[in-house]
């Protein structure tokens, strides 16, 4: 399946992009491994993950065209 990945805040300086498409994704775990391979420095940052703009607390089942967001701590206001 195809997954759209978004990066926000300071993470965009690590990834040098705000979004990246991943094709032929098998599972959430597979996606995470590929992102960690592409951006090994992400491990040094704090972030939460949202799928289709809802924060997840455990590994989700992904569907084709899902949107996965990497979000550092919020700093609005």
């Amino acid at each position, binding site marked *: 399946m195809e997954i759209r990945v*978004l990066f*926000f*805040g*300071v993470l965009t*300086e690590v990834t040098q992009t705000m979004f990246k498409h991943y094709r032929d994704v098998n599972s959430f775990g597979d996606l995470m491994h590929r992102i960690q391979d592409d951006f090994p420095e992400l491990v040094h940052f704090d972030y939460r993950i*949202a799928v289709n*703009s*809802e924060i997840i607390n455990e590994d989700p089942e992904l569907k084709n065209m899902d949107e996965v*967001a990497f*979000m*550092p*701590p*919020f*700093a*609005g*206001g």
Partner: protein
Amino acid sequence: MAKTTLIKGPVTHELISSRMRLLGENREIGGHSIFLGQVRADIKGIRKVKAIEYSAYEEMVNREAESIKQKILSEYNDVRSIDIFHSTGVVMAGEISLMVLVSAGHRQHAMAACDKTVEMIKEKLPVWKKEIFEDNSHEWKRENLA
């Protein structure tokens, strides 16, 4: 209730005034509590903040803002309306980046609900800020201490 939460650039005096002009329409309202967040020209070492550049996960901001409003309305049944406006993009020091306006039948509810709304915005809205200094260097702000 306002549908748009995110505003491109600062929350202007014109926007604030236009919302204020609507206040008297509901005759059951006894108090309005308003919070305005303003960009501070903080000093960090030898650098001074000139502006903050906000970025947001827009779809999630809208969903979370709606959920905050629903939560406040169900917790404070005296609250009649809640407006939330938050900037995206560049806001200069001295300009307003956040407006929360809560109207209620009684003052204590207006004030308590406004405080709670601002706390929830800080906690729940996916917004990030990059401080831009006068020398044009920048730094992502981690802490949420506006």
